[in-house]
C-alpha cells in the first residue's frame, strides 16, 4: 500500500510547504521562483522514469512539455475549454502521440534510441513552426479575457500555481508507485539487461512503450498550465533543446533512479541556475558551470547526491526513496 510508505507522506508535506509558503505575505516573487522549481521537478521526475528506471536516454523529453503546452493552450483559448479539462486532454493526446512514436523508435537500443529522440524533438519543432492553426513561428498569445473564467489574471495565476504544485506532487507519487510495482521491477530488469529480461518473460516492447507514454502525460499537463500562466507560447521556448538537456543534468545531479533524486536535483539545479542568471558577473557563465557540474558528477559521482547519501546512510534507502 502506498499509504504505508513514509516517502508518500514526505511528498505531501513538500507539496503543502510549496503551497503555503508564498501565501505568507502574498509573496509573488517567491511564487515565481517556486514555479520554476516545480516545473524542473516535474520534468526531471518524469524523465527519471525513462533514464533512471528503464535505462533509456531521452534527449527530447521537452517535446512532451511543449506539445502539451500548445495543445492545451489551443483548447483553452481558441476553443474556449475549461483550463483543467484542456490540460488533461492535452496530456492524454500527447501520451497517445508518445505511444505511437514509442512503438516505432523503441525498437532501437542504447545510443540509437537517444539519437532518435533528438530527431523527434527537432522534427516536431519544425512542424509546429510551420503549422498555421498554432501561429507558426510567432506562436500563440493570451489576452486578459482568457483569464476571466478563473476570476481575472491575478486570481488565475494563483490557481495555476496550485495546479502546477499538484502536478509536481503527482509526478513524485507516480515515480513512487511505479518504483514499487511489478511493472517497475520489469523496467529495472530491462535497465540491467534487456535480453535477460525478455527471456524471463518481461514483454520489453510493451513495457518500454507504456513507460515512454506515461512519462509524457504529466509534463504535457504541466506544459499547458505553465504556458497558460506565461500567457504566450512559441516554438523556440516550447521545444527548447537546452531545457531538455538541463533535465538530464538535474537528474544526474540528484541521482538517477531515486524518486527524491529527481526532485532534489531539479530543485537544486533550478535554484542554482536562477542565482547565476541574476548575478551580473556569472550570468554569462551559467552554461559553463552547469556543464562543469555535469562533467564532475558523471566522472566522479555517477550516483548523484542520492547515491552518495545511500552510501553513507544505507538505511536512508527505505525512507527517502
Amino acid at each position, binding site marked *: 500500500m502506498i499509504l504505508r510508505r513514509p516517502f508518500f507522506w514526505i511528498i505531501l508535506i513538500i507539496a503543502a510547504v510549496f503551497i503555503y509558503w508564498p501565501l505568507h505575505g502574498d509573496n509573488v516573487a517567491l511564487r515565481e521562483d517556486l514555479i520554476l522549481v516545480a516545473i524542473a521537478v516535474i520534468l526531471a521526475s518524469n524523465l527519471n522514469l525513462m533514464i533512471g528506471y528503464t535505462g533509456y536516454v531521452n534527449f527530447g523529453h521537452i517535446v512532451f512539455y511543449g506539445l502539451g503546452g500548445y495543445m492545451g493552450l489551443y483548447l483553452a483559448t481558441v476553443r474556449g475549454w475549461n483550463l483543467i479539462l484542456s490540460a488533461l486532454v492535452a496530456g492524454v493526446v500527447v501520451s497517445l502521440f508518445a505511444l505511437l512514436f514509442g512503438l516505432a*523508435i523503441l525498437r532501437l537500443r542504447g545510443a540509437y534510441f537517444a539519437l532518435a529522440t533528438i*530527431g523527434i524533438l*527537432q522534427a516536431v519543432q519544425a512542424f509546429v513552426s510551420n503549422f498555421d492553426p498554432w501561429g507558426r513561428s510567432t506562436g500563440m498569445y493570451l489576452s486578459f479575457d482568457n483569464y476571466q473564467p478563473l476570476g481575472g489574471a491575478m486570481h488565475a495565476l494563483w490557481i495555476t500555481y496550485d495546479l502546477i504544485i499538484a502536478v509536481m506532487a503527482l509526478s513524485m507519487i507516480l515515480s513512487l508507485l511505479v518504483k514499487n510495482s511489478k511493472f517497475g521491477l520489469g523496467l529495472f530488469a530491462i535497465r540491467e539487461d534487456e535480453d535477460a529480461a525478455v527471456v524471463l518473460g518481461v514483454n520489453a516492447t510493451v513495457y518500454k512503450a507504456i513507460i515512454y507514454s506515461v512519462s509524457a502525460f504529466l509534463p504535457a499537463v504541466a506544459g499547458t498550465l505553465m504556458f497558460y500562466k506565461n500567457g504566450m507560447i512559441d516554438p523556440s521556448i516550447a521545444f527548447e533543446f537546452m531545457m531538455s538537456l538541463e533535465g538530464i543534468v538535474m537528474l544526474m545531479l540528484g541521482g538517477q533512479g531515486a524518486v527524491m533524486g529527481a526532485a532534489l536535483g531539479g530543485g537544486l539545479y533550478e535554484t542554482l541556475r536562477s542565482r547565476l542568471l541574476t548575478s551580473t558577473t556569472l550570468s554569462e557563465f551559467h552554461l*559553463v558551470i552547469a556543464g562543469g557540474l555535469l*562533467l564532475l558528477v*558523471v566522472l566522479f559521482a555517477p550516483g548523484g547526491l542520492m547515491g552518495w547519501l545511500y552510501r553513507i546512510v544505507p538505511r536512508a534507502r527505505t525512507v527517502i526513496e
Partner: protein
Amino acid sequence: MSGVLASMIDGVLVGAVYGLAAMGLSLIWGVMDVINLTHGSMIVLGMFGMYLVFSAFVTNAYVLLLPVMGAGLLLGIVVYWMAVHWVVGRSILMSLLSTFAVNMIVIGIGTAIWTTTPYNVSYTLPGITLGAYTFTGNHIAAAIAATVIALALQLFLYHTRTGKAIRAVSDNRDAAELMGISTTAVLTIAFAIGIALAGTSGALVSTLFPFTILSGAVYQLKSFVVTILAGLGKPFGALVAGVLLGLLEGVITPFIAVSWIPLIEFGLFVVALVAFPQGIFGKRAAA
C-alpha cells in the same frame, strides 16, 4: 528545370562538407563506441578558428585550413583526456553526458566571448558561370578540399601502421591490445583526428555561410543524419552519404519553403534510424 539542376550541383558541393564533418563523428563512434556530443561545438570552434586566423593573416583561406586542423588535433587530445578517456567502455549514458558537458562548457565560454551575433569570413574566390547560373568559387573549393581530406583519411586508415591500428582497435579492442597495440594511444589519436575533421569542416563552412556560436547544432544534426545513413566506422561512406544529403537539400529547396527543410531532414533521420540501424551501406543485423 536547369534551375533545379544548378541547385542540385550546389547541394552536392555543400554536401561534401557535410560528409567531411560526419567523418569525424563516424570515426570516433566506430572506434570507441562513444557518441561525441562535442561534435557541434568543435565544428563551431573550427568556424571561429578560421575567423580568427583569417582576420590575423588575410591570405588564401584554404591555406589556413592547416593551422585550424592542427589546433583541432591538439584540442582533441585535451578533450579526450578531460572527458572521454574515463568513460570509454562504460554505459553509453555516461559518454553521452560527459561529452555533452564539454559541449555546454565550450558553448558557454563561446557565448561569453563572441555573443550570439553572426560572423562571417569574407573571402571569395571567383566563381564559374555556366549559362544563367554561377557556381561560387568557395563552394567548389570547399568541396574539393573536403574530398581531398576525405581521401587522405582513407589512405591513412588503410595504408599506414597507425591507421591499421585504429581499424584493429575499432574491430576488437581486446584482441588489438593482445597484439601489442597501445589502445590508449590509438583512442587518443582517433579522437584527435575526429575533432580535427569536425573543426576543419567548420572552417570550410565558415567560408560558405555566416555563422554564430550556436550554428554547431545544425551541422551536428546533419552529421548524425549522414553517419546513420552511412553506417558506423565507414568514413568514405560518410562522404558519399553527405553528398546524398546535400543533393536532397538541393532537390527540395526550389520547391518548398526553407522552414520545412528541418522537418524533412529530421523525419528522414528518424526513419533512417528505425529502418536501417546499421546504415544503408552497413551490415543488416538487429540494432
